[in-house]
């Protein structure tokens, strides 16, 4: 008797479960059919260590949504407005995943953002379980697009594209200046991003005729860069290549200035501060002439110039996060327009064949290969006279490089 009863109740529970599950799956579909707006997930680390970048990213996405709605919404769907479902990834991968689950429950048709590589890795994977299109805004780790996830697209360049371009441009820069650079010191943070890059540079730089005389790792956060500066001073390299996050590079640049360490150049790759208006504004002397290889907006694009003015007017910094998220949301809207639907598979298919060109980045034609936009490229920026100028490539440059830096 007892056995029999348990059997029934278990089956009952199962039926109830199935009912619930179908209900849960059916509901978003129903909501979508009658939707008066198109929901898109805007995922950023709004609090925690990466909050500065995350908030800038969210700002860029908001501007794009505002622009689309002001221009009459999504026309292919009868002028429906976009609605942002904002999420805070708490600067952790787990935080990102739980926000993806919530966005899924709220019925978004795609997600844009993530910022840091670990968040993008985890969040795009979580989204892939629902075939939810995910557009990575910044995360440069190559693994993000190498996992074969069909839902994941990266509009910006990955670290292999960035470092290849950085090396090419360094050679060009050095050749044009009469080859003043022979010895190089690497300073890098000891995480996934800095160490990976340092390893690559240690093998690639010697092939291009440079000698790496020192490679100094430091943790994030660091309280003091005195020892790093001392080691640079002792080796006296021609060039310093720093790959660190914001706080540490600012500390290093300040310490180098204090210790009167003046190499012929500071050539950063994907640096957290070297092409950041905040650094330039707060420490103009330490920042002057620093070159970075990084994401950047197209300084000749009129929309970008207007957007920068508006962001400046709000008293905020026009970081690359703003430009990348602005562009990524427009990329998504373009895909929705061409798909003529908020169906996830159709949006994914539209992204795969995207040739989107109305972005504000200095990129070639958009073309996704295995989720990576092959048109994406970084630029070289240099801090000149308290402003950040693009010095490479020539097609987008608005200033000539100052190299080597006058002593």
């Amino acid at each position, binding site marked *: 008797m007892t056995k029999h009863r348990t059997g029934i109740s278990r089956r009952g529970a199962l039926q109830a479960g199935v009912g619930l599950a179908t209900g849960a799956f059916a509901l978003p579909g129903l909501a979508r059919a009658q939707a008066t707006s198109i929901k898109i997930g805007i995922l950023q680390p709004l609090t925690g260590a990466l909050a500065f970048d995350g908030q800038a990213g969210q700002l860029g996405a908001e501007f794009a949504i505002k622009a689309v709605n002001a221009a009459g919404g999504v026309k292919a769907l009868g002028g429906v407005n976009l609605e942002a479902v904002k999420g805070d990834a708490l600067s952790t991968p787990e935080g990102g995943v739980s926000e993806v689950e919530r966005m899924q429950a709220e019925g978004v048709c795609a997600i844009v953002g993530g910022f840091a590589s670990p968040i993008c890795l985890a969040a795009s994977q979580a989204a892939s379980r629902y075939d939810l299109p995910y557009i990575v805004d910044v995360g440069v780790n190559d693994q993000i697009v190498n996992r074969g996830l069909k839902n994941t697209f990266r509009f910006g360049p990955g670290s292999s594209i960035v470092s290849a371009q950085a090396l090419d441009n360094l050679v060009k820069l050095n050749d044009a200046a009469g080859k003043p650079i022979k010895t190089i010191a690497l300073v890098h943070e000891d995480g996934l991003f800095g160490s990976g890059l340092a390893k690559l540079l240690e093998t690639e730089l010697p092939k291009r005729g440079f000698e790496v005389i020192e490679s100094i790792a430091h*943790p994030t956060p660091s309280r*003091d860069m*005195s020892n790093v500066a*001392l080691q640079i001073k002792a080796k006296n390299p021609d060039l310093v290549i720093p790959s660190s996050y914001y706080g540490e590079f600012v500390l290093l640049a300040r310490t180098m200035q204090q210790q009167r360490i003046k190499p012929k150049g500071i050539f950063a790759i994907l640096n957290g501060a070297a092409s950041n208006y905040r650094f330039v504004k707060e420490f103009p002397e330490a920042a002057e002439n620093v070159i970075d290889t990084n994401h950047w907006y197209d300084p000749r694009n009129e929309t970008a110039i207007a957007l920068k003015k508006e962001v400046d007017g709000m008293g905020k910094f026009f970081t690359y996060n703003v430009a990348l998220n602005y562009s990524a949301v427009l990329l998504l809207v373009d895909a929705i327009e061409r798909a003529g639907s908020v169906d996830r598979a159709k949006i994914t298919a539209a992204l795969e064949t995207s040739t989107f060109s109305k972005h504000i980045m200095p990129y070639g034609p958009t073309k996704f290969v295995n989720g990576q936009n092959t048109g994406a490229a970084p630029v070289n920026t240099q801090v000149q006279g308290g402003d950040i100028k693009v010095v490479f490539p020539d097609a987008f440059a608005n200033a000539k490089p100052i190299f080597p830096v006058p002593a």
Partner: protein
Amino acid sequence: MFAPEIVIAAVINGLLTGAVYALVSVALTLVYGVLHIINFAHGAILTAAMFAAFFAEQAGVDPLIAVFGLAPLFFVLGYGAQRYIIGPASHGEDSNTLLVTLGLSILIENALLAAFGSDTRTIDVPYGFSTVDLGFVFLPAPRVIAFAVTCVTATLLWALLKKTDTGKAIRAVAKEKLGAALVGIDVAHVYAVTFGLGAACLAIAACVLLPSYYVQPRVGDAYVFVAFTVVVLGGMGSAPGAMIGGLFIGVVESLSGLYFGESLGQLGIFVIFILALLVRPTGLFGARA
């Protein structure tokens, strides 16, 4: 191997960093020595003081001048916190006090986070980039000032504990609470004064730290972990122990950073922490159990 001038420069840098550790540790050990509680809110108070110094600077007051206002202010705040929150809430139980200070730290950190966000903020003072030239090394002026201020503060604190009636009362309470109460010392008042002194020391540390460091809502944690090590090394409750321990730990961190790489700079500190607990649990200057 490194050239001798680099090693010497690293040692001097270590001493300069160690001075700030010492100041933070003296405050921690003072509170422990008298109240017999481990103050988990220590880092949060340091962070709050750094924010106060930051906004003072934004209002046009240099941190080195603001210290004369902030140290008394934090004394009052610390006094109030102990007298009206930590003391009553702990009901005389040490374990409760631990939890109350932990709760207080969570409260302060999150209030700061809610109010100011998690951005790192820095200030730029006129002497921010000045250096003292020793011939073979340039010492950053803000850190030399921090070192000097620490020495002065430590001396004042020592004089206060040794020479004044308040100091005697604090020492009496630390040694024998019941006896002190019996001879007419207001124990609750002395507790609060001690906590206030600790907070004032942190305010001073904050003002000398800010010109060469940054502030964000979790910045205090980094210093407090080190301070706990210093306190254990120097001997729980021993002010001279905390001073010497702080300087020593600063040098250890600097040298292990130089020799094992910056990533492992903190390794030296915690190896010493474990060694101290194993070999000499009472610390360098601690009373023998």
